[in-house]
């Protein structure tokens, strides 16, 4: 057993806070890191210590292996959790952390690499007997080869970056004429984003469902799955609503996919928490899509239905503990239904990211609602970072109860100053297609276009109250909480002052 006395979380925002919370509960000392421009970030307050990564871009701070390691040395950390994104799936980082003599809270570098290269991963899965999406398995660069390959698979096809992930550098091609441009753009993006311009083709499955399985393995080789997460509600190839259980899985199919997920993890000698993503085609066949070798954004819905703390077990496994016997002996089963909604700072119509200042921030709460936030009132939402503002998770006794609870949570949410995708999330939850459970990754494109209603009288009056007051010279005012803006007579504190 290795001991962890002080954990550095090499991340920011909600996932940094998420990990710091559990570490604190385990009695482990905590270290947050921050870029100078991000010193007001909410994760900075959640650790025993906060180490500055200095000024500069993301590449010079949260993505800088030397800066992270230096922060670990200066703060006396003996372990590093990468969260998701940034360096989480960077095998070199994993090796550097261990070379430094620190505990790496993540899978072995070898497993990260094996899954990180999509072509290698596909090959490895096929060997392991895990079905993969039909496609080309050589990172061809010659347009002619790719064209022949595409003809063989049959259009429409997907062009993907071998080193990519999360839909990055991926594009759909419907006819041969568009193939060349798509391949070139994919290679350029792949080169700039991953430093590897090899791409490959995949048969595009029409109206698929995106269902992933949580896997977990300890250092002794015990490998289990912790059931599925349905991730088919997407826009721009990115998930916005996830739920578990999935309405698409029969007990038999769930069993088969779970076994395949465990096989996939074993095939690369996986240790810790990981996710195996599958595509489910309209004939009910499943195909390995990719693996995420880290804690998944949507892990809270698994925690909600299983009543467990996945980050706790990431740390326990990193210390050398075995998985709990009720996991390995199959005594753990989901209870109820959970839905996660990703609140993004973006234009609700064209889904494009938005920046701004969060002037008002009120989170939903109460029974069955969990909110993991990356911002608070006053936060600056910048284009430098992921536009995820918060993850709102609703758990209910059954699926209908979870859906209604999720909508209730959206009713309680107040975000002013930055546009969010709240209207889109509400539209998804209200849609007949989502409620039926029989939906696929094209759900969002089929949503009825919502009419934006004009402001009601109360909104005009509230705005007039806020705007008719003269702004203090030289600066716009923060919010109606500022008594000098609100123009009211009673003032906070007066009664007791």
């Amino acid at each position, binding site marked *: 057993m290795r001991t962890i006395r002080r954990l550095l979380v090499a991340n920011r925002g909600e996932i940094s806070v998420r990990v710091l919370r559990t570490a604190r509960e385990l009695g482990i000392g905590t270290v947050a890191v921050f870029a100078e421009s991000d010193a007001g970030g909410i994760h900075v307050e959640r650790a025993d210590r906060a180490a500055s990564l200095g000024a500069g871009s993301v590449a010079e701070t949260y993505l800088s292996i030397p800066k992270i390691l230096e922060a670990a040395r200066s703060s006396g950390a003996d372990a590093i959790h990468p969260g998701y994104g940034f360096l989480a799936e960077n095998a070199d980082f994993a090796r550097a952390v261990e070379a430094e003599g620190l505990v790496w809270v993540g899978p072995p570098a070898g497993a990260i690499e094996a899954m990180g290269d999509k072509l290698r991963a596909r090959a490895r899965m096929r060997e392991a007997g895990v079905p993969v999406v039909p496609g080309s398995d050589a990172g061809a660069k010659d347009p002619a080869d790719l064209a022949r390959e595409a003809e063989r698979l049959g259009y429409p096809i997907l062009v993907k970056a071998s080193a990519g992930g999360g839909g990055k550098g991926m594009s759909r091609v419907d006819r041969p004429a568009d193939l060349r441009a798509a391949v070139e753009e994919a290679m350029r993006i792949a080169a700039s984003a991953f430093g590897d311009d090899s791409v490959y083709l995949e048969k595009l499955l029409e109206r698929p469902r995106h269902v992933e399985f949580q896997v977990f393995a300890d250092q002794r080789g015990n490998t289990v799955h912790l059931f599925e997460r349905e991730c088919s509600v997407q826009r721009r190839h990115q998930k916005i609503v996830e739920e578990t259980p999935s309405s698409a899985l029969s007990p038999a199919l769930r069993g088969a996919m779970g076994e395949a997920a465990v096989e996939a993890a074993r095939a690369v000698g996986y240790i810790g928490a990981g996710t195996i993503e599958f595509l489910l085609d309209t004939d009910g066949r499943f195909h390995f899509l990719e693996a995420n070798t880290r804690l998944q954004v949507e892990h809270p819905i698994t925690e909600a239905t299983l009543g467990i703390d996945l980050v706790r077990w990431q740390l326990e496994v990193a210390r050398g503990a075995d998985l709990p016997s009720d996991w390995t002996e199959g005594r753990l089963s989901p209870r109820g239904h959970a839905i996660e909604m990703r609140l993004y700072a973006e234009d609700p119509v064209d889904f494009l990211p938005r920046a701004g200042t969060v002037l008002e921030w009120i989170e939903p709460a109460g029974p069955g609602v969990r909110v993991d936030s990356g911002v608070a009132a006053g936060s600056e939402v910048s284009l430098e970072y992921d536009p995820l503002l918060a993850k709102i998770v609703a758990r209910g006794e059954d699926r209908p109860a979870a859906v209604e609870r999720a909508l209730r949570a959206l009713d309680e949410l107040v975000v002013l100053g930055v*546009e969010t995708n709240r209207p889109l999330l509400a539209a998804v939850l209200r849609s007949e297609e989502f409620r039926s459970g029989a939906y696929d990754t094209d759900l969002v494109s089929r949503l009825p276009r919502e009419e934006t209603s004009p402001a009601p009288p109360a909104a005009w009056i509230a*705005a007039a109250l806020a705007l008719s007051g003269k702004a203090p010279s030289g600066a716009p005012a923060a919010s109606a909480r500022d008594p000098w803006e609100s123009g*009211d007579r009673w003032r906070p504190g007066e009664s007791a002052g």
Partner: protein
Amino acid sequence: MKGIRLESRGEGREVLLENGNALLDGTAHSFREIRRGGSLVALELDGTVVPVRVARQGDRAFVWCAGDVFEVRRPAGRTARARPAGGEPHAGLVAPMPGRIRKTLVQTGEEVAKGQVVVVLEAMKMEHAIRAPQDGVITKLRHREGDLVDAGTVLAEIS
């Protein structure tokens, strides 16, 4: 007391507030402010309690009401109008969002076809192709690769 002119979602209202009464384009409403610690949390409007939240930013007010958020502006000259309103359709060769110009695929004087990619804009580590709205000739390229541009910025002109 004189009223103020407000705009939201392409509509305008003349709003006059006077001791518990509001005139919206001449229509009268009686209202009462319900506050908590100085913050407006609800309006009792014509006898009905309506929860609201409002935050001011310069000449803009953001209002949360019945789960929806409204951006209300008090027209104050050019600076206000220059700011693009959320949800409005994005004009031709204009940056649809703030970001960095990743690549410029044409040169001044070059002919472009409708739909042809002219500029690649990068934001949130994702790339977005900005395409020509119609056939024409590039008469002006306003920015260099690497430039940071705000939403609504004109990236190129096409004759």
